[in-house]
């Protein structure tokens, strides 16, 4: 009975918090193209494209910093309100999790 509960808990979607540190998954090919980025996920065999701002967030993931740190850096680089920045960054990162392109420290 206890095992059942444990399994169910593991399957709940990882909710992202400001302190979460996300890492790019290794089974990926990526390339900068002009000011944008193209990706191929080896695991799901899909191509992805990222615009200028998304590419910037994606490249910040190489630094092993928290989501809060990413938001703070973007606020210094782009003219955007803190609430909008936070919402957009969270949306984007949640998409990356959904598409299995990133992982957290706890779930490699």
């Amino acid at each position, binding site marked *: 009975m206890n095992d059942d509960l444990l399994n169910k808990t593991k399957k709940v979607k990882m909710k992202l918090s400001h302190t979460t540190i996300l890492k790019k998954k290794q089974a990926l090919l990526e390339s900068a193209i*002009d000011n944008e980025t*193209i990706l191929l996920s080896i695991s799901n*065999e899909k191509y992805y494209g990222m*615009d200028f701002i998304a590419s910037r967030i994606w490249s910040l993931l190489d630094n092993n910093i928290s989501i809060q740190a990413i938001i703070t850096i973007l606020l210094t680089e782009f003219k955007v309100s803190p609430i909008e920045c936070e919402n957009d960054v969270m949306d984007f990162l949640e998409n990356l999790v959904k598409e299995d392109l990133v992982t957290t420290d706890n779930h490699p």
Partner: protein
Amino acid sequence: MPAPFIYKLFGFTIASELECPELLPSDEQPEVRISFGTIPTEYDENNNLKAYWKATPDYFFFTLKNISKFLVTDGKNILIETSPAAELDQVRLFLLGTCFGALMHQRGLFLLHGSSIVLEEDCIIFTGPVGVGKSTIAAAFKNKGYQVLTDDVCAISFSHVESEWPMVYPGYPQLKLTPASLKKTHHNINQLQSVSSDTDKYRLPIINEFHTAPSRLRAICILDTHDVDTFSLDMLYGTNKFQQLMKNIYRGSLVNELGLQRKYFKNFIAINKKTECYHFHRPNKSFLLNESVTFLEKALIAV
């Protein structure tokens, strides 16, 4: 067993048991073999469909009922099993188009659906949706004195000698044109062979104007139409460039099935280093062929 016919196509030397009069002969050592035989029945999984194909990382199988079955393996061998009712014209159409395309995919070439003409030392590719005028534009450039490298399938690879530059290889020495396009480009339809009973296109052989050596790919031009009366040429960048090119891959649906996503990704990055990509729009009301050619000539050669 009669000796096979030897041809040169897209840089490959082919030994073929099926005669293909539209191809150029060669006396080099063959590296691709096209032969007749029996294909094991387990490849034909769906006997009820009129036309059926299956691609895996190991093979490409294609069948048209009452015409033939084809099995393409290792980028080296094409096995054809024909039925008594087969018209050789149709067999060759699918052999040299879809099946040879699959063979080149297996060899890791980057294939675009379109035509290619030679500008000075380098070449450009015209690609775009079906019916937009890729072959017609090539025919018009040919009339202006430019040489033609290929029509319908553009095979891009990297040579050992010029490893930085994507190279386009000489394809079919012909243009496939509709009666309307033949008229627009002042070609006589008499004595021209029909491509097949399924389509209204005719084969226009290219003899003197066929370019027989691989050529550096300077630019790719995606042809398109729009609602306004002007011509426009925009350079493509970034993810848009990637998306547009991937949309125009020859038999693009084979890429995933053959397990070639990685190869295509890497090839795109290499092509992107040297080759510009443009999106051309002409008015959709009428073709305006001469004006299109003049516009493209100025815009692409001036670069």
